[in-house]
């Protein structure tokens, strides 16, 4: 390779390195914001869980959370949350792989709701039925999109078109650890919900401190537990979906941050190698020139 070519390659590697470096810092900021939003939504989730506890204590039997039998007619709905853009390591493929595993052999019964371009692409590629799709999702989770989605899902569920609604997303554990999850949303399972709320605080890092529990109380429930539960269920579904979206966002940004970090490191490494090669090549050219000159002088002498 000529000197000029190597020089060009060094320049372009440097530029790529700068871009990935910038993307890394942008993702870092966005990740922090997502985490803060996750914490801001915590009182809501906690309070909802507390109310649910009180009510379910005073309701005999949890007949609101009945699971339909497997033979029941209707579709299984799955809300798939991925990112719009790639460059985030194995983030999206992990979600989609987990989804395929969880619903293996049920493809015919599945109806999908795709959130994010990668999910839409996946569904059309793999031949899943798409009922609804959302793309161009902003970095902040938009409540309007979410309300729209929840209205659609709950109305389908109430009509019996869906007998089960799940959600597949990437759970944020820490900056370097995310895992793909599939969780059931409807019929509502209090245990799943509780686990989800407990997971709001990441295991390690800035926000990982525990909060104290509020003491027991005797509540008056008005007008009656059934009514309150009816008004509470949409809220609980909201919490689950919102939470899943936030987790996905936080995971996306941290995965991208890590991916971009290794890209930056790699570009530095390549740059170093190329510079070394450039210097060797240059040395070779100089040596050749010098020997030519001395050769010329020798020729003149004789």
């Amino acid at each position: 390779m000529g000197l000029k070519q190597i020089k060009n390659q060094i320049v372009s590697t440097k530029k790529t390195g700068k871009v990935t470096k910038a993307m890394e810092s942008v993702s870092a900021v966005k990740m922090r914001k997502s985490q803060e939003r996750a914490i801001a939504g915590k009182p809501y989730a906690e309070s909802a869980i507390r109310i649910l506890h009180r009510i379910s204590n005073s309701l005999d039997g949890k007949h609101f959370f009945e699971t339909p039998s497997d033979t029941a007619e209707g579709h299984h709905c799955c809300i798939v949350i991925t990112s719009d853009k790639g460059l985030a390591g194995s983030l999206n493929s992990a979600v989609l792989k987990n989804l395929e595993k969880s619903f293996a052999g049920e493809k015919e019964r599945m109806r999908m709701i795709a959130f994010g371009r990668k999910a839409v692409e996946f569904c059309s590629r793999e031949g899943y039925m798409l009922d609804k799709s959302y793309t161009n999702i902003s970095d902040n989770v938009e409540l309007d999109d979410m309300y729209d989605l929840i209205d659609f899902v709950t109305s389908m569920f109430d009509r019996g078109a869906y007998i089960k609604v799940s959600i597949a997303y990437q759970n944020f554990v820490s900056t370097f650890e995310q895992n793909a999850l599939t969780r059931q949303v409807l019929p509502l399972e209090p245990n799943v919900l509780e686990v989800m709320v407990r997971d709001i605080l990441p295991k390690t890092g800035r926000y990982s401190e525990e909060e104290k529990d509020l003491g027991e109380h005797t509540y008056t429930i008005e007008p009656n537990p059934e009514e309150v539960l009816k008004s509470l269920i949409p809220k609980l579904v909201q919490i689950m979906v919102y939470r899943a979206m936030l987790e996905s966002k936080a995971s996306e940004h941290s995965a991208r941050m890590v991916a971009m970090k290794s890209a930056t490191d790699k570009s530095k490494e390549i740059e170093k190698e190329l510079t070394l090669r450039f210097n060797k090549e240059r040395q070779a050219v100089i040596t050749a020139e010098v020997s030519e000159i001395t050769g010329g002088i020798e020729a003149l002498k004789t």
Partner: protein
Amino acid sequence: MSNQELLHVTVTKVDGPVFDGDAISLSVPGTEGDMEILAHHAAIITSLRKGTIKVTKPDGDVETHDLKNGTLEVSNNRAILLI
């Protein structure tokens, strides 16, 4: 007005609180009729219907929020509204 007893009110949407602070009183549209909550109200859980929440702040200002539906929980002199 300065020695008025206060209660802590949190009005929150799923993505975070829209109001969080002390208040003299809180008026909400309950499904069984409108309710006014003052400091040291008995513990209660109730569902809310469409309407407006009014929070009277310690300086006498009234802050209002619209809601479609919601749930109210009061305990320990603390009111939490999920809207």
